[in-house]
């Protein structure tokens, strides 16, 4: 009977000095925060009007009942 190839299921860290958990966390975190995309997202947030909030109006010229 042919042995199953499990090599894709278990990934052994390249550097054995790094605990597996830490390796997993750092590598996935790294993958999840692409810096350029993050920057673009922030630009988009900036432009969505989220900052368009102030504690008072400039003047009240129009008012619809």
């Amino acid at each position, binding site marked *: 009977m042919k042995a199953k190839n499990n090599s894709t299921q278990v990934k052994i860290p390249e550097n054995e000095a790094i605990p597996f958990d830490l390796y997993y966390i750092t590598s996935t975190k790294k993958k999840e925060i692409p810096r350029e995309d993050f920057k673009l997202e922030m630009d988009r947030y900036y432009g*969505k009007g989220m900052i*368009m909030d102030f*504690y*008072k109006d400039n*003047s009240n*010229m*129009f*008012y619809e009942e």
Partner: protein
Amino acid sequence: MKNKEDHFILFSTCIPVKGYVSSLIMDLDKGEYLEIPNELYDILVTDHFKYTIEEVKSLFNNDYDEGINQYFQYLVNNHYGFYTSNPSPFQKLPLHFDSPHKVISSIVVINKDSKYDLTNVFQQLDALDCQLLQIRIYDKIEVARVIETLKVLSKSSIRIIELYLPAFLKLSHEVLKNILVDFPRILITVYGAEKSKKVSVLKNSSRIIKYTNQKLLYSSKEVYSKNLFTVSREMFLESVNYNAGLYRKVCIDHEGSIKNYVSHETAYGNIKDNLIADIIQKEEFKEKYYLKNDLIEKCKDCQFRYMCLSNSDIEKKGKNYYKINTCTYNPYKNTWEPSVNI
């Protein structure tokens, strides 16, 4: 549950304000207010840190015992205050106000005769850390030129740019939409439209174009309404210390005159000859910053004085100050006349 030795303390951001015939409690955290009778105001401003509830009752000759019980419980139930046996750790709200912005708000008027350098004005306002900019366009002018000028503000710290455009310019919906897309901080109001409406233009965005059938004339006065009041911590602190409408406001009228507000008569210089930074340092320009509602006749008797925004000019008659454009609220009768916008 309150005990006999308990004190009743209002939360530090719940501020009782007395009017001539009616008072209110401003809740600065929730952004709302509760109208109360003047008798309750007098009870609330006694020193509750010193006196227990029972002692407060006796200060009023035990005439209001039942009212005090019911009102205090109502205020506790509605999160305006609380009972405590030890009030000493609690403090009142410090009333100091300061702002990092050299100019908080500004209005710039443009018509067909305006000859001043708009780019220069915007750059100066940006350098002064202006937060609110309102651009009022009258007449048939080339709006594309104004929009082009606004590009100098694309990286500025101005939070909100209000653009008031006349309907007779007949700018298409697509043009207005493009302005909103290109300038994320612009709010557009088209005045003098056939019908008042709000049009949503962008998907997944709350930004709208406002159309109003109201007119905007040089002589148009501000509108006062209960629905336009602002209850917030900053607004309250600014109003307690300064004139909330005019404090650190600088306006440029269509001729380039630098004023406290566009409809005021007094000009302190012209943008063609003076720097805004120099004008706002002048003592005579800053004089109106300090004429807060507490010092102005009628306003000082109004319970809404710390939430009402007014840019009206102020005149002195004898020893008293009066607003030239006043509201339609009568604090001596607690009644509103319908407001009229020209």
